[in-house]
């Protein structure tokens, strides 16, 4: 952030305070009036103000200070704080400093409200600790600063200092899953594949063939049968996980990381947790946000890729997206990928794409992110009874959609943290091993 330098005629200049003006007026009028009218009582009343005015004027500033403010961190997680530090130079004339920090939504500060005034003793400038409570891009550290000379004679500012854009990443809720991927199809990973290969999971025992390694020979079976037999294992492969986040609307109240969570809060945090879990297991993870911003991250692995996903999640914008193909979502699902749809399931395109992919034999899992007691965002002038009725109808439609998805074989689970999708992933993995007919 560039330092704020005084501009001629602007607010960044020393100006007399109203307190000095009051002392001058009362002192001068009192003394002059007393002398002219011969009223000594007024001299007694005015004498302290003459002193106050004189002391204020004596401390007239001679230097223009230069202000600069910086945040310690520009990337944060929800609930984690940073410090806004103000640096002053040429501020020898100042005795008192006031910082009034702007209060964007979902941000808490210490001192409370980001308003602090302190005496500048030994060059100590008060700091403001800022903590965003919700993911997203936030302008933090925007503030107004004022300086006062001793005896409050002159004031510098208030000077507006622009803040810095900060990326608030969604918090990674404690999440772990021991379930294997339904259709691993990759290179090296931690999931048991359907095909045989190098691994630890026993697949079977078969007669020896040229090329088999000797250490695979099962001597017990070979001695019993009289022919060489080898142990076969199932290959261990990585899998692709496509996270589809529904950002078409946000339902329910959001009170930050330690309060009530809206549907998008749940979706973003669940996506971050699932992505982190799979990236750490070596899987390839992709992200597709169905919303106004069309945020998308291709398949990839590793910590840097995880960071890209988290960055994209932090910039999710709510709103309807215009899909190119007459409203039909194109997710670009690759073979062997698991599709995790995080949605409150109130939008038709998302339900349609989940059903279509399930029919095609893709392992699709829907994580229901609708909060327990959602309330529709109704305009004040709308009929409350009508709105409640419309919301109930929408809930009925939603339950019908969920039932149809379940009938198609697409599991729907509510997000509840660790182990949320374990059971359904295991069932999907078992089902994937069975022969089935799929639509193309």
């Amino acid at each position, binding site marked *: 952030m560039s330092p704020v330098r005084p501009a*001629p005629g602007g607010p960044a200049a020393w100006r007399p305070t109203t307190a000095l003006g009051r002392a001058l007026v009362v002192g001068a009028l009192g003394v002059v009036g007393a002398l002219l009218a011969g009223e*000594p009582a*007024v001299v007694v*009343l005015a004498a302290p103000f003459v002193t*106050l005015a004189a002391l204020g004027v004596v401390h007239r500033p001679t230097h223009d200070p230069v202000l600069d403010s910086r945040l310690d961190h520009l990337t944060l997680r929800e609930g984690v704080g940073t410090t806004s530090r103000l640096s002053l130079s040429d501020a020898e004339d100042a005795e008192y400093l006031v910082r009034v920090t702007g*209060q964007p939504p979902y941000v808490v500060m210490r001192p409370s409200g980001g308003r602090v005034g302190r005496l500048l003793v030994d060059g100590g400038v008060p700091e403001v600790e800022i903590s965003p409570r919700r993911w997203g891009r936030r302008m933090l550290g925007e503030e107004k600063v004022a300086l006062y000379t001793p005896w409050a004679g002159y004031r510098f500012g208030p000077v507006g200092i622009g803040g810095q854009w900060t990326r608030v990443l969604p918090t990674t809720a404690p999440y772990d899953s021991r379930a294997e991927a339904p259709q691993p199809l990759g290179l090296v990973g931690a999931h048991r594949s359907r095909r045989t290969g190098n691994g630890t999971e026993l697949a079977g025992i078969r007669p020896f063939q040229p090329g088999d390694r000797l250490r695979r020979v099962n001597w017990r079976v070979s001695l019993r049968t009289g022919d060489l037999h080898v142990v076969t294992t199932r290959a261990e492969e990585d899998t692709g996980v496509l996270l589809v986040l529904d950002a078409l609307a946000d339902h329910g109240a959001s009170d930050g990381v330690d309060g009530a969570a809206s549907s998008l809060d749940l979706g973003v945090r669940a996506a971050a947790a699932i992505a982190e879990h799979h990236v750490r297991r070596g899987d390839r993870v992709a992200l597709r946000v169905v919303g106004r911003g069309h945020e998308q991250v291709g398949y990839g692995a590793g910590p840097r890729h995880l960071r890209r996903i988290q960055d994209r999640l932090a910039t999710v914008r709510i709103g309807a997206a215009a899909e190119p193909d007459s409203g039909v979502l194109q997710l670009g699902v690759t073979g062997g990928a698991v599709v995790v749809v995080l949605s409150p399931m109130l939008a038709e395109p998302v339900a349609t794409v989940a059903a279509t992919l399930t029919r095609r034999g893709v392992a699709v899992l829907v994580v229901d992110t609708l909060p327990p007691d959602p309330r529709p965002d109704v305009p004040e002038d709308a009929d409350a009874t009508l709105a409640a009725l419309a919301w109930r109808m929408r809930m009925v439609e939603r339950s019908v959609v969920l039932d149809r998805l379940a009938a198609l074989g697409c599991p729907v689970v509510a997000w509840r943290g660790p182990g949320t999708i374990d059971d359904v992933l295991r069932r999907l993995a078992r089902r994937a091993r069975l022969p089935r007919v799929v639509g193309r």
Partner: protein
Amino acid sequence: MSPLQGYGEPDDWARSQIALRVLVLVGPVVAVLAAGPAGHAPPWWLVGVVAALAGASAWVPDSPFGVAPFLVVLGWWAAALGDASSAWVLVAAAGLVVAHVAGAVASYGPATMPVDVATVRLWAGRGLLVLLTAPVAWAVTRLLGDQPEQPGVWVLGVAAACLATVVATAALGTREEER
């Protein structure tokens, strides 16, 4: 969606600011009421006017109109009492100084910004120091009260007024004008 209204956000005034603003309100009222024991009780409407002006000053301590209750108090003491023989003028001076100092500290920041103890202590000391000039002036006026009027007092008064004007101009003039 609630943007965390009231989430650690002090929408209410800070207690220290309330205390300071109460002093801004009470100071001029005490100063004008102190004329009563001195033998010139103010009419109720005058007390009301002073209280209203002081209340406005307490609400917006950074307002230039904050000088109004001080001038009304000065005017009443000048019109009603004249001489400084009563020690109650010291009470009035204390009331005005307390109101001025409290207003100066309160105007440092918004009403929701608390004032720290060190600042309050510093300004309390300053207020007491400045207030010492009132008994000195009171003693001097009592000593000189019986003396015959000096022939050059009017010249001295005009010179003091000119000096005050020069000081005020030097103090209130902006530095851009100098450039």
